[in-house]
């Protein structure tokens, strides 16, 4: 070996050096080495248990013995369409839709103000004002609403002070949205869902509005559009990917939640509660698995549609 060659490619010394050299020469082997641990974890453990669960939805339960019959059948899926179960599906999906629409409506002004008008100190206030509720404990937030909506709580106290008790009572008399008190009504459940998932909507909407140049809004005004028209024809279309991105969270999280309706709401079940009940005391894993297929399917379609709308760029 000549001296020159030794300078151009000095040989690494020691086992670490040799290993390093051989990895450099075989990038495919290095790639394999990098990917194996995460793929083992996510691909084998996580996807494995997911598919095992889905497979169990094709089993059925013997009504007499309560044992699981491991022959593939669609019987369990037919059970999903029994009126009682269908009600659960419709209830959950419409709640998710309502929460998503309301979250978009409440989030938009906050996101728009933060994106366009807030500067300096106010920018920081808005940033922290959204991040702190987003990251504070989910259960604490639910607990706070239990305090607010309690019969002896602050909301009823406030309504009483304003002499509006009659209005609240009239509202609670209404079918479907009413109930004995706010904390056992769909309205209560809805408010808590809206509160807990709202930051997940604000952030992507704000991200999409940040990208709208101020000159575009001014141009719209210069061309004679009223503020309402600018909102309708310029801002909303540009914010739509952000709204769709946020709705992925609000929709998916509402579909799968079983704690909020259990703590604040009427005793009528949501998908999550049905899954929990069927896998727990009832021991009917096949039906529980079939129930979980519904949100998976809905979210699959939703994600596909969202991707086509370009919502992932707003994340």
């Amino acid at each position, binding site marked *: 070996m000549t001296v020159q060659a030794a300078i151009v490619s000095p040989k690494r010394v020691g086992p670490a050096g040799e290993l390093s050299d051989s990895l450099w020469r075989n990038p495919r082997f290095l790639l394999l080495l*990098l990917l194996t641990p995460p793929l083992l974890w996510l691909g084998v453990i996580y996807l494995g248990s997911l598919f095992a669960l889905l497979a169990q939805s094709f089993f059925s339960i013997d009504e007499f013995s309560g044992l699981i019959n491991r022959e593939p059948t669609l019987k369990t899926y037919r059970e999903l369409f029994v009126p009682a179960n269908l009600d659960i599906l419709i209830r959950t999906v419409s709640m998710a839709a309502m929460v998503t629409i309301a979250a978009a409506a409440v989030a938009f002004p906050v996101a728009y103000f933060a994106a366009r008008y807030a500067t300096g100190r106010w920018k920081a206030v808005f940033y922290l004002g959204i991040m702190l509720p987003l990251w504070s404990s989910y259960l604490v937030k639910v607990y706070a609403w239990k305090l607010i909506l309690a019969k002896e709580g602050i909301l009823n106290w406030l309504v009483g002070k304003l002499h509006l008790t009659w209005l609240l009572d009239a509202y609670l008399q209404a079918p479907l949205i009413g109930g004995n008190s706010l904390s056992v009504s769909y309205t209560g459940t809805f408010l808590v869902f809206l509160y807990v998932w709202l930051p997940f909507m604000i952030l992507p909407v704000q991200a999409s509005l940040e990208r709208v140049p101020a000159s575009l809004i001014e141009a719209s005004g210069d061309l004679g559009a009223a503020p309402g028209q600018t909102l309708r024809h310029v801002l909303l279309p540009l914010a739509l990917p952000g709204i769709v991105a946020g709705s992925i969270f609000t929709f998916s999280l509402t579909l799968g939640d079983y704690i909020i309706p259990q703590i604040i709401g009427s005793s009528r079940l949501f998908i999550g509660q049905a899954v929990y009940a069927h896998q727990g005391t009832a021991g009917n894993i096949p039906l529980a698995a079939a129930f979980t297929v519904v949100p998976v399917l809905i979210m699959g379609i939703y994600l596909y549609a969202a991707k086509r709308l370009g919502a992932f760029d707003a994340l």
Partner: protein
Amino acid sequence: MRSDRQNRAPMGLKIAAAAGLLFLHLPILLIFVYAFTTEEKSYQWPPPGYTIKWLGVTWNRPDVWESLALSVKVAAISTLIAIVLGTLCAAAVSRWRFFGREAISLLVILPIALPGIITGIALRSAFNLADIPFSTWTIVLGHATFCIVVVYNNAVARFRRLSTSLIEASMDLGADGFQTFRYIVLPNLATALLAGGMLAFALSFDEVIVTTFTAGHQATLPIWMLEELVRPRQRPVTNVVAMVVVLVTFLPILAAYYLTRDGDQIGGHGK
């Protein structure tokens, strides 16, 4: 050229934005008031009186300490696993283009894109099928699964900014792969991993839905709170724990904000 009038927000927008922020914060502020109430049996408002007695009572409750210790332990181990797996994944995805690359980014996101109850019940039935008894490790297994994505997201973003010429320069100057990783890649990656790790820790510390399925008889702090919510035993203690949890989660978020704030300004995020 902009006129002043256009730079000022319309009144309606101001009110709506302020109302939105108040809606987000008033409920949390309420927690702080309730932690000091003298009322024990109900959620009466306004509180009949104020006391700091319950801080002491909570301090002396062994079950609160036990669940807190378990939560911290689980969150720490899950975060470590997530940092290792998330970084490996991010390194592979950002350095090479290979078959199934898109599928991997989808696979990483899946545990948080799907409702938590699905991850929970899938893991639980898998544990049952495989006859694995519930333990701290089954909780960690569930938590690490959905923590990987936050580390991964942070690491991928940083790898994208890390120029390959830097790595090549290090190699040209005679460093081997491990030295390059130790002295070039890791220092560049450190703050992203720190941020990702903090978020992963917070995510795990607060998780309740997956945990209810993978925990067996052990109680993490969220499980403890959930039990108190469903069947209240001593409401004032729950109030105090809720307040402490809020304070504990606020501090890292504030810290993360002040740590990353300067970088954002240099990056030209200001308007």
